[in-house]
């Protein structure tokens, strides 16, 4: 009964929204979530925002070379993080998902270690910042090559189906990713095989400078699902509860054997594409200000206020607590130091072949004081 009410209409013309901009619950069902969960969503969104701000400082002070801001994506990312079973289901994220992997439990020290490319990076400093991954938490390592993780997400889901593990793969990406061949190949294959995978588009309507109108002629991203024979949900991604309930629905459908679906979470990207970008070249001041007005944190705060769960003192002590956690993790990561240079030759293969052994010896010789 409740389950039925929680089911969502695919291919709606208006984005699915459960909280309006004034913070009113406008869904036809009660949210039924305990206070603690509602507060946790806020905590995770705020943590994501503060992490983003911290990364900007790291960039400005020259401690990192690159960031991909996620401010504006918090509601979508926190919604996704809570919709899957932590450490059981798999996440195939993309580079803008630091808020998502944080909410999923990837330790801040690892996030900073990866950002600094130092000894606290579980991936040993191979990739640029914003490329997390965690084997213990089933977070597939991010790859810079857009959409290259879509077919692997399908494959992992097929494996889950074959091995009857009851797991689901959740795969996130931007709107630009939906133009790549890999996206179509992976989504199509998943649909044909009814693989337990949920494709989630964090649609901020820009791929670097290219507006969605030049990216796709579809009226939205969700509708593309129709062509592949699976449901597509068009969702207000500035609404954390809409993001959460719709993705949860899709995840549970997949888990029950109903096959994949595509969830489009429409968001804003408040910052530039990355630290290498200048968004004033292609977004007007007005557009950027209008986006900022629709802050997902503010909307959720209004909702919590109406529920009697938010007050300024709680929020400011939460902020202080989170800032403390961020700073402590950052200091631990900063203290870790450079990764050992000869690690460069590890992990190319399971065991080092002769030619890498030889090259490693040469470098070791060179590095002798």
């Amino acid at each position, binding site marked *: 009964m409740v389950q039925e009410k929680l089911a969502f209409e695919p291919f709606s013309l208006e984005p699915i929204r459960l909280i309006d901009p004034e913070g009113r619950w406008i869904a036809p069902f009660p949210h039924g979530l305990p206070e603690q969960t509602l507060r946790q969503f806020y905590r995770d969104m705020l943590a994501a925002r503060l992490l983003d701000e911290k990364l900007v400082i790291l960039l400005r002070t020259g401690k990192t070379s690159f960031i991909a801001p996620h401010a504006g994506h918090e509601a979508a990312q926190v919604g996704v993080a809570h919709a899957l079973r932590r450490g059981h289901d798999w996440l195939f994220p993309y580079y803008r998902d630091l808020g998502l992997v944080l909410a999923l439990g990837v330790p801040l020290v690892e996030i900073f270690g990866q950002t600094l490319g130092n000894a606290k990076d579980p991936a040993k*400093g191979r990739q640029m910042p914003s490329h997390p991954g965690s084997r213990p938490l089933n977070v597939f390592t991010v790859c*810079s090559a857009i959409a*290259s993780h879509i077919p692997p997400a399908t494959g992992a889901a097929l494996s889950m189906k074959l091995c009857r593990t009851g797991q689901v793969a959740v795969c996130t990406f931007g709107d630009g990713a939906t133009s790549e061949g890999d996206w179509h190949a992976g989504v199509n294959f998943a649909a044909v095989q009814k693989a337990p995978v949920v494709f989630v588009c964090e649609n901020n309507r820009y791929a670097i400078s290219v507006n969605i109108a030049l990216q796709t002629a579809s009226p939205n991203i969700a509708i593309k699902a129709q062509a592949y024979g699976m449901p597509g949900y068009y969702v207000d991604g500035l609404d954390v509860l809409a993001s959460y309930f719709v993705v949860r629905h899709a995840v549970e459908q997949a888990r029950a054997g109903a096959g994949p679906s595509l969830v489009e979470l429409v968001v804003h990207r408040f910052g530039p594409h990355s630290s290498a970008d200048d968004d004033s070249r292609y977004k007007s001041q007005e557009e950027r200000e209008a986006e900022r007005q629709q802050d997902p944190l503010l909307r959720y705060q209004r909702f919590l206020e109406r529920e009697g769960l938010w007050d300024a003192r709680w929020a400011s002590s939460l902020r202080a607590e989170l800032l403390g956690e961020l700073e402590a993790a950052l200091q631990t990561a900063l203290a870790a130091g450079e990764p050992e240079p000869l690690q460069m030759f590890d992990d190319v293969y399971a065991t080092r072949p002769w030619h*890498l052994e030889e090259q490693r010896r040469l470098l070791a010789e060179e590095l002798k004081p």
Partner: protein
Amino acid sequence: MPTLNLIQAINLALDEEMRRDERVVILGEDVGRRGGVFLATEGLQAKYGPDRVMDTPLAEAAIIGAAVGMAAHGLRPVAEIQFADYVFPGIDQLFSQAAKLRYRSGGQFTAPMVVRMPTGGGVKGGHHHSQSPEAHFAHTPGLKVVVVSTPYDAKGLLKAAIRDDDPVVFMEPKRLYRAVKEEVPAEEYLLPIGQAAIRREGRDLTIVSYGGSMVEVLKAAEEMAAVGLEAEVIDLRSVLPWDKPTVLASVAKTGRLLVVAEAPRTASVASEIAATVAEELFDQMLAPPLRVTGFDTPYPLAQDKLYMPTVTRILNAAKRLIDY
């Protein structure tokens, strides 16, 4: 004569060619409104309109494949791949279509197009913004492969590439984009694809290199000169076809060959040159040819500086050649 950096020289070449020939069109991710993430196409959409400078969907297969069709139909497309590392989703179009169209069709169809891409490391870009994939292209019959190292060359070679009747992969070392400046004539000039440049004359050994590594090679050559060792430095500029006569003549004179490039060592362009020289000049050489290259690992962010050929590594190899 204006003093330009590499990116400005590329912009100028594109501008001149678009003005000269209406068939020249540009397509790629962010090339229009933004002017390219490195600003190579800055101002061109404002000048020539969105039909001739086209922001495309994020799809390299579409960019390269569409360029093939445009070229076959009569245009002269210049496709931009945002980073060389992202050519791979478009590689089927480049390898199966562009490279072999002339051959497969018995010369009935051709693909006169340019695929430009920033290449190489040294910018703290980590793995997927640092690779040097030229050997993949050079191993593909039907493509020409240019890797520039100076603004002057970039302008002359890009203009030549656009007028070339075959597909040309045009690689631009991103760490040089703003690092090198020189006088670039505002007038029209073309440089032939396939011709190397002798950057420095010398009698003691030949150093063959190209692209980003030219910086370290020239520094090393200066340090050698300070101790009386004269290296002849050759900048290949085109790695396919490469300028065999210039390289052979030089090694015939010096008797020693060092090839320097930052791509991984095995099955590389450096290997090809070393092997060819060994085959042709074995009995005139005073030492076996040596290579200084990137390691056979994926490109690592944390060891950025150690990965690429360093001046010290070049000097050590030169010493080995001399002491042999």
